[in-house]
């Protein structure tokens, strides 16, 4: 039932997203499945989802987008990090049924997000240059998280280590300490952290 096509229906999907609770109007009370329409990496998908399905499982098991990883399924590791409406989220903690109208970007869509002709996002390139991974299982989450984090810092969102004197709303300068603090939701058991931080610094520079 998945339909996947290049769609220009972004606007109407956005409208559904703001529909009042309890969500998609065509789900009768007691239903265990609902239809959701969402865009993933620029492609529209309309699909019936089990109400128990997480966004992560929808991506991995239904849409064959296995780039997003499942390290814990509990919001503890960040391997499942994707961008939803531009913000980084743990997709294992989101129910797919609640994502009607969402614009999702996964690691498979990062290169397009950069809007360049190359087949890699600059951060992906930097990860290769710095050897910022070994087994690669945390890598998609690190990448999506870092892309979301750079946007947060640009928008002036403070972290626990941001100088309180810094004016709200002005872009935060990303020191090594800031980067480490802001990426601490993404675990890497291979211990690639020092190289990940270098890669992030490369794209800021």
């Amino acid at each position, binding site marked *: 039932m998945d339909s996947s096509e290049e769609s220009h229906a972004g606007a109407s999907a956005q409208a559904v997203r703001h529909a009042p609770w309890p969500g998609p109007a065509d789900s009768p009370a007691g239903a*265990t499945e609902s239809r959701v329409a969402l865009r993933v990496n620029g492609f529209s998908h309309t699909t019936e989802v089990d109400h128990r399905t997480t966004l992560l499982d929808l991506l991995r098991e239904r849409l064959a987008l296995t*780039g997003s990883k499942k390290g814990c399924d509990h919001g503890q590791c960040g391997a499942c990090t994707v961008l939803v409406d531009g913000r980084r989220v743990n997709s294992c903690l989101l129910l797919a049924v609640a994502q009607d109208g969402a614009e999702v970007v996964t690691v498979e869509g990062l290169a397009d997000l950069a809007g360049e002709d190359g087949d890699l996002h600059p951060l992906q390139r930097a990860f290769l240059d710095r050897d910022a*991974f070994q087994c690669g299982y945390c890598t998609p989450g690190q990448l999506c998280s870092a892309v979301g984090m750079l946007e947060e810092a640009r928008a002036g969102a403070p972290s626990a280590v941001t100088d309180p004197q810094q004016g709200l709303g002005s872009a935060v300068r990303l020191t090594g300490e800031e980067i480490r603090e802001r990426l601490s939701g993404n675990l890497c058991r291979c211990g690639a952290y020092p190289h990940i931080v270098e890669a992030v610094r490369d794209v800021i520079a």
Partner: protein
Amino acid sequence: MASQAHNAVGSPIERREGGAKVSGGALYATEYTPPGCVYAWLVTATVPKGRVASLDTAAALKVPGVLAVLTPDSAPRLADTDDATLAVLQNSEVPHHGWPVALAVAETLEAARAAAGSVGVAYETEPHESVLTEDPPGAYTPDEVNGGHPTERRRGDPEGRFAAAPVKIDARYRVPPLYNHPMEPHGATASWRDGRLTVYDTSQGADPVRAVLAQVFELPEERVTVVCEHVGGGFGSKGTPRPHVVLAAMASLHVRRPVKLALTRRQLTELVGHRAPTDHRLRLGAEPDGTLTSLIHEVTTHTSRIKEFVEQAAVPGRVMYAGANSLTAHRVAALDVPTPSWMRAPGEAPGMYALESAVDELACALAMDPIELRTRNEPDEEPDSGRPFSSRHLVECLREGAKRFGWAERDHRAGVRRSGAWLTGTGVAAATYPVLVSPSRATVTAHPDGLHVVRINATDIGTGARTVLAQIAAEALGVGAEAVRTEIGTTGLPKAPLAGGSSGTASWGWAVHEACRSLARRLHERSGPLPPEGLTASADTRGTADAESPYARHAFGAHFAEVGVDTDTGEVRVRRLLGVYAAGRILNPRTAGSQFIGGMVMGLGMALTEGGRVDPASGAFLGSDLAGYHVPAHADVPEVEAHWIDEEDAHLNPMGSKGIGEIGIVGTAAAIGNAVHHATGIRFRELPLTPDQVHAAGRGLV
């Protein structure tokens, strides 16, 4: 050997699977979805010991989409294996908390999980003992310890010389249970077709998985295919076949559909092995000039009731320091706990924590620089065996590290550097890891278009095996690495040993090197164009790679740490970590650096944040998921640097390499612990150095 080839051995070339990994295209075990694939979810025991009295599957079987619930009554029978941890769903016994008792299979992941949650289990419990005490009743001396090492070695009169020593240390150190926690949980996708079994597994070696599946399902090995193309870390916990792969294959056999099974993060620690807790008693006796006169290292650890695994933590004492009087011994207690297994540098990691902490204590007692103390006790030959070292550059590592770290400026007094609430200190510790190697096969084909294809069932658990094997092949063939393709990761390829014991690259590389040298000779002898199918050479290093060496072969290293200790909170922050290694020839500096650093980061976790706990009441590992068990996160990890010295050693393998995957964790915890002592003047002897422990001990410091 002369080689004009660029990009060959020693070049920092980029890992070949990197593009696939950063763009999400690399496939791991549970990311294959064969047509008709269904999902399994495991039900595990909630009691520490006893048996399943009754299993009620009625509610589970009513869950929409459920296909079956496998129980000890309904699950396929397995032929005997020597590994009791794999005999799952064969009877109603519960040997430990977390043991598999049922497996739900359903059309979807959600339905499988709901069905598993609906299985009712009643247990008959028996009295249990799950906590390792200092002197456990029933502890015994095992016949041997992990790695096949003798359980006890004694030279000279260690007790007598210790008693008579003018300067001595007698200390106990404790390392808690530790969990491997690779980021990719253990999982497999299995399918049967026409009497053939195909499995996508996450394992450090596909050939051992195939052998075990063939054995338990009584199939010839040719009818089993195991694919481990990308593996999301293992650190020992995927070193041998683990129960998930047997369960997935059983479920698929039962429902006659392909089945995916992933263990949950919490299930991992109780089903795939852990580092057993170790209690160490260390006694060092020395002359006032620092000469060691006695070294006694006694280790007590646990194993499970179903399988003996003994962490060989006293073994490094047989390698490290000169002296004619030594005792290194192990005792183990079989408890009602999950079965321990390999975790990065089994034996060396906890053993060197204890030994290198004691050496630091001795240096303090002697008022001697700890580097100087180690240098004075540098042996001419391996103390335990009397064999010459094939190469040993520990002192060079210590000196090089000292130079890079700025050790010369160190004020050796402890507890005197304060800035606000913070005390700072520095510490050093040595590292060692044995050179292990196993026989392997490999083939290489030269194609008319100039491409060389190396085929070997090696496994890339993150080391960059594809890349480094291409470099080894390129050097042996005298071509550029870009002219070599490596095919690895499936049992369709020539048989190879696992990625473990820091032996993968040496074992596989040896066979690749031999195959390529023989191909190069044949290419040299012939003239005219190659046949369309190319020219193939193969190698099998049985008899050479496993030949007994007259040398003691080990890698060595030195770790340096700088820490800050917050006297208000007891928090220890590592500020700098440096490792300098002597590990033979470094084949790819880029990927090697990542392995060394990764090992140090895990050592940082061992020092400060990682501590498993057994709940005495339930026999469960408490807080064993990634919220309860803190593996280091970005914010914990400061600048970490790895360097190495050029080491030539002709007694290793054709590449001249030693293993590098594990030595980074060895000694890191001791270096950090020694730095904490230097900062605070307090000696902590129980890992991890969490704020509660440090704060409680450090009240007087404020």
